[in-house]
């Protein structure tokens, strides 16, 4: 059963529709990511739950109770802000304990719970510091502590890692996921970073222009994108337009510029139909000299350019009418390859989009 539920939520700012009939169900204890480019409405959707703005239409439910119209201070939906929003005139201790003071917890209880948080976020000894006297990473941990100290069931996170440097970001996201699991909190996480979304989430909702384009697990989003936008936004991708030659129960035979491919799929299609194949760069490898080629999974191409990245080489390969991006993890000491090559596809990881990829059923 859904713990948090958005039902046909519509939010307008003047003539601009920020949320266009958005529906989303979030089970208890899940880590759900709202992923999308800036301006897609992901933060706006979260703000409807926190109560910072009210939807024009639709309902926001938590545990079956309608939240619409409830002021933010009665919603119990602690939020970690992108720029942390720590109170600059309060110390670390005062920042973390502020919420507890508002609900008039006894002093000893406040002390106990704050030190619990200080320990969890490795902030011991910094209680008396002001936000301006701390590093970005420390401020960030105070922001987490301040939100979690209330012991609520829900945690909202609005791009909380975007102001950290790359390495710290990777560390924090693992730590954050562990804490969320341990406490059993239902978390909603807003980000435009696909790596964060894929690595942390139970469920990802990909948004564009005020609509949800796809809801699914990280695996589904990555390997079975609902359309071109999702495929393109999450990870690097190659699209291959092809025509269906024959369609049997579980296998399609398709053609691109005279090259035939056999694609195992559950998606029904009929002969003569135009489809788009979604191919991830790491699902292709360049055939070595004398390698036995798998039948119905080979394309002919010409290497146009390459870029050496250490652990792999990224090739740009001309295939028929398309240029493919291929990540070759099999780096040879002798250098990059060139000229004509055979591309071997991992047929099971291919995905089919119909109608030019605009909208496809999964």
């Amino acid at each position, binding site marked *: 059963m859904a713990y948090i539920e958005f039902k046909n939520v519509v939010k307008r700012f*003047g*003539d601009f529709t920020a949320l266009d009939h958005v529906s989303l169900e979030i089970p208890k204890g899940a880590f759900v990511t709202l992923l999308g480019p800036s301006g897609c409405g992901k933060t706006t959707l979260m703000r409807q739950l*926190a*109560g*910072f703005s009210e939807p024009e239409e639709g309902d926001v439910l938590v545990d079956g109770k309608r939240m619409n119209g409830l*002021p*933010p*201070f*009665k919603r*119990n*939906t*602690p*939020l970690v*802000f*992108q*720029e942390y*929003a*720590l*109170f*600059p*005139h309060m110390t670390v201790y005062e920042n973390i304990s*502020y*919420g507890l003071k*508002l*609900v008039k917890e006894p002093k000893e209880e406040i002390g106990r719970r704050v030190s619990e948080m200080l320990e969890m976020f490795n902030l011991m000894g910094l209680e008396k510091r002001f936000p301006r006297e701390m590093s970005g990473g420390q401020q960030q941990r105070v922001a987490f502590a*301040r939100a979690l100290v*209330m012991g609520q069931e829900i945690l909202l996170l609005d791009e909380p890692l975007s102001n950290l440097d790359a390495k710290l970001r990777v560390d924090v996201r693992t730590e954050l996921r562990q804490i969320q699991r341990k406490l059993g909190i239902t978390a909603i996480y807003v980000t435009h970073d696909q790596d964060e979304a894929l690595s942390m989430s139970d469920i990802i909702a990909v948004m564009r222009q005020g609509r949800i384009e796809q809801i699914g697990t990280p695996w589904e989003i990555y390997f079975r994108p609902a359309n071109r936008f999702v495929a393109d936004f999450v990870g690097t991708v190659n699209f291959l337009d092809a025509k269906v030659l024959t369609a049997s129960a579980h296998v399609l035979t398709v053609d691109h510029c005279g090259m035939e491919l056999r694609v195992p799929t559950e998606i029904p299609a009929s002969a003569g139909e135009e489809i788009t194949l979604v191919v991830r760069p790491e699902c292709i490898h360049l055939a070595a000299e004398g390698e036995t080629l798998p039948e119905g999974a080979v394309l002919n191409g010409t290497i146009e350019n390459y870029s050496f990245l250490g652990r792999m080489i990224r090739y740009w390969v001309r295939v028929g009418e398309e240029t493919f991006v291929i990540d070759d993890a099999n780096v040879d000491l002798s250098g990059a390859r060139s000229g004509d090559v055979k591309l071997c596809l991992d047929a099971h990881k291919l995905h089919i989009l119909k109608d030019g990829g605009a909208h496809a059923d999964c």
Partner: protein
Amino acid sequence: MAAGTSVRESLKEMKRLKNEPLLLLAIIVIILFVGFFVVYPVIKVILFPGVEDYMQLFHKARWFKAVKNSLFMTLISTISCTAVAFLFAYVIARLDVPCKKLFRFVTLLPIVSPPFIVALSYILLFGVQGIVTKQLLGLQVDIYGRLGLWIVQTVTFFPYAYSVIYGVIRSISTNLEYAAYNMGATRWQVFRDVFWPLCRPGVAGGALVAAINVLTDFGNPQMIGGDLALLPTEAYMQISGWYDMKTASVLAVALLIPAVVLFLVQRFWVGRRSYVTITGKEISLNPFPVPKWVKWTLFSLTMFISLFILLVYGTLCYGAFTKAWGYDWTLTMENIQYVFQKGHQIWNSIRYAFCASLGAAFLAMVLAYIVQKKQVGVNKLLDFLGILPGAIPGMFLGIGFVMAFNTPPLELTGTSIIMILALLFWNIPTCYSSATAGLQQIGASVEDAALNLGANSFRSFKDVIIPLLKAPFMSSFVLSFLRSVTCLSVVIFLYAPATTVGTVSVMVLVQSGQWGEAAAFTLVLITIAFTVLKLAQWILGKQGIELEL
């Protein structure tokens, strides 16, 4: 279409106000207050004279001349103010020279001084009984008139232009100049093609600030203008000498028009032409050194002006302790004692300045808070009300108050209340921009964070917003206090014997030739202003807050 939508949005926002009665009340009170104490007096003055009264401006040679003189003085003083201000700003911001502390101090002095101090000192130095003219050179020269006024106004008002220009020069990244050198530009080309175009909006802004001050200057022309007919002094003469409110109103309106034009240009034209972007992350290199002879020429010029300003203040101190300027140079405490006999006037100065500043800072704070943080549908109107009094010359507001509040229902003439109210509304724009700047520093989501943690609107205002507003409140209060204690033009029409303030006494003393007493009075006023400034800086400094002026 767009206008229709925005009107619809505004109406929607206004409807929401029904749920926040306190906010609604605050908005109504502010609109009524500003309407009644600023807009109403202004309209009263404008409508008081008839068309034929206004035609006098063109028919009567003396009034026409006053208009011409006022505009001419504004033009030449503004040019010289801007040049000196640019010199100071450039030397302080870009050159590696000694004595920068002294230069900075010199630019701060006029802000804590009454506007006529330079004129007074100038008389003491070069007047009929002047220490330079009579004592050292034995000359008899007439220093009253155009040239004297020009020098005095330049020295008095360049610091206002300086602070604008300095701010802009400071924020121009030296990297841009290095980029130009890197592409092969010579020193002069870099200055002409990169530095100067980037400074230009700042220079224009500074010039306009100086121009507004020069145009509406009353104290200096009154003391040193001599026979030179200028709009502010002529209007004053009409009221104090002839009780001719009609003519005074005509002259005041003639002053209001260019003041409003300058104000609008500054606000809407220059304001939009700033190229300066503050990224905060950029690291600038040290400025590229200029040739030695240029550096030391500029330094000498700056030093010369600085020493002249120090001489002005030194002369004032000397004058305050001298028995009879020009005749008897023995040192004495009599002048200071005289000031303490008239202590009531000093007390009035402090009292009125304190009350007016408290009121102005509070009102401006509430107004700025609503405009910045609340969407109430009338934000643009409220913002306009906050800056509006800035377009009105101080003496115009004074005349307006006399005309608007000398009859029931609100008969305030001669009371302390009218002095306080006039100073209060005169200071609103200063406090408002200071409060706005302070509020913009507060992150947008800090208040949301408090709501999110369970604080209701009242608690979040009390626990988060109020403590964060302390610094901007203090700085607008101090700024307003300094302006009020040293203000002459607003109160000159409003004082009664019992409500005389220090600045008015100085003017009267100067006119009757009591230089020593006048100097002593001025010295006491400056001391008070400076003490308050230092005290506030010290108190805020202890809390890690820098007071900005």
